[in-house]
């Protein structure tokens, strides 16, 4: 995706988010969008095909998403503007905007071994404290890290892994 498309996706996401008057409504709409994308996934090729007319595509969207009229209208608008391909990026941006409204930070934590539930809870708490928000954490296991944790959150990487320390030590010795 190029920069222009990114900016366009961001503008659509802001417009979609602006429909909500409260945080709860924003969360509902974000879930609606997520469910809509899921529901339309089998028809992805059909909706992207240039051989199918926009009217036919819109017809399919409105009939599939009859229970989500607002979201269906939004996707129909994207079809009209030939911006349907931006939908995954828009969803991502909408999620970020909703997280901001709800005071959530999303983090990814990598460790060499699976963390115990207590360790996971402690990590979540520490992240929440650092970023002054509620942390939604995804835990990954990467044995190459050897030990320690690597946290990626809000465009920041906190690396306290043994692998990183050894790399630094190697650099220091070779210098």
């Amino acid at each position: 995706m190029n920069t222009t498309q990114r900016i366009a996706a961001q503008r659509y996401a802001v417009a979609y988010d602006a429909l909500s008057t409260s945080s709860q409504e924003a969360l509902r709409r974000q879930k609606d969008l997520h469910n809509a994308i899921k529901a339309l996934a089998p028809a992805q090729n059909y909706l992207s095909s240039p051989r199918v007319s926009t009217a036919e595509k819109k017809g399919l969207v409105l009939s599939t998403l009859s229970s989500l009229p607002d979201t269906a209208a939004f996707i129909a608008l994207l079809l009209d503007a030939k911006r349907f391909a931006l939908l995954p990026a828009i969803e991502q941006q909408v999620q970020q905007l909703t997280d901001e409204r709800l005071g959530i930070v999303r983090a990814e934590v990598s460790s060499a071994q699976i963390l115990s539930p207590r360790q996971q809870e402690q990590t979540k708490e520490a992240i929440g404290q650092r970023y002054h928000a509620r942390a939604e954490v995804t835990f990954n296991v990467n044995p190459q890290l050897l030990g320690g944790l690597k946290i990626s959150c809000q465009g920041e990487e906190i690396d306290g892994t043994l692998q990183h320390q050894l790399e630094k030590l190697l650099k220091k010795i070779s210098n």
Partner: protein
Amino acid sequence: MAIRPEEITSIIKQKIAQFDAQVDISETGTVIQVGDGIARVHGLKNVKSSELVDFGNGVQGMALNLEYDNVGCVLMGPDHLVHEGDIVKRTGKVISIGVSSQMIGRVVNPLGKPLDGKGEITAEKTMPLDIVAPGIIDRQPVKQPLQTGIKAIDAMIPIGKGQRELIIGDRQTGKTAIAVDAIINQKNIPEKERCICIYVAVGQKQSTVAQVIKTLSDFGAMDYTVVVSATASDPASLLYIAPYAGCAIGEYFMWQGKDVLIVYDDLSKHAQAYREMSLLLRRPPGREAYPGDVFYLHSRLLERACKLSNENGGGSLTALPIIETQANDVSAYIPTNVISITDGQIYLESNLFLSGIKPAINVGLSVSRVGGSAQRKMMRKVAGTLRIDLSQYQELAGFAQFGSELDKESQRQIARGKRMTELLKQHQYTPLKVGEEVWVLYAGTHGYLDTVPVEQVQAYEKQLLAFLHAQHAKALEELQQANELTEELEQKMVQILEEFKTVFKEA
């Protein structure tokens, strides 16, 4: 020197003991688009302009465009190692180069990595590539001559240490040859006054660079030369930083009080590389599709050439930028820019080159704005009116072509002009010592050649130099050391030249 294993073990143990394990926090971004040596990164909110960023896989980049929701970076390595979604880390450092006196005699790339397979270079200091040039207080006027060994230049377009003299001309007119000759000539200069030379190849063919390196090695000039090479096959980003890297290396020596001569070969290709990068970064194109700051690109580079004040060690950085013109058009964008930045230009013409005048310097259009005050007094005395005389000769020669009848004085001027033009011809890789130059030019300007047929002028010069070396080496050396042409010296010269008249044999 033998290295004992236990010593290495103890050093490693010591380093491990001193190692402070800390958690590293770095600001990251994500690659959203990559291609053509450019990457766009989302994130890196606090990144600074010209900051070095790490793309992983050993590829680094430089943040150049700080935009609303992304950062445009130029990659310093192959772009196929960078993928969409890759994590990019800030380094907090501006782009810099590790410099060292070990670089002398070596060929390095613009990042300071050796290219000649002669082993690693241990950096003594790290110098930022792009710094602000020394201010007025830090400088002193250009006052020492920089001998190129080329008669025409040393006599008529003298270059001073700390000057910026542009070499401009079409392709195949001998621009690089002049710069290489100036480097080779440093061998003729006592070590104390000799310049450390830096040859920066920007966008040249690898074969051309290899040829230059071979020539310099053959003449023993690599002993005091550093070659910074960014060839045509390197990414535009490396071509862009190459002159700055060369300049940073030069400044390292300059601040040690040494004299440095740097050749940028050539800045046309440098501007083209910058244009390529700017267009890919979607910066607005201006005249000839160059970005608006292309003047600043070269002015900030060439402003760094200077003669430092004695308090700062008195070192100097003399720049010889080269510009390639198209069809002798000096009014194109980049040539006019660089002409206005530099302290003079040596203008080479393909017509002169093809008519056998080598170096093909157009005397009328070439000028040195500050070098005159740096010229040795004896050279100024001998060649003072040479430039005007030659210009007048060229004007008169134009008239003579129409078959107009000329008075005696004009005929004399034409005859002298023809001989002086012949005398100023010089073969490549044969730089002369200043004493030899003065002797030869004295003979020309004082009428000793007037009786010699034009086609015998070069034979006269050759025989005169051989005669001086064989019979009057002491007088030649005396002139070489002298600054001023005293009456006593002049009398001796006249005497020897009279003596040579009887010895000279036409070839």
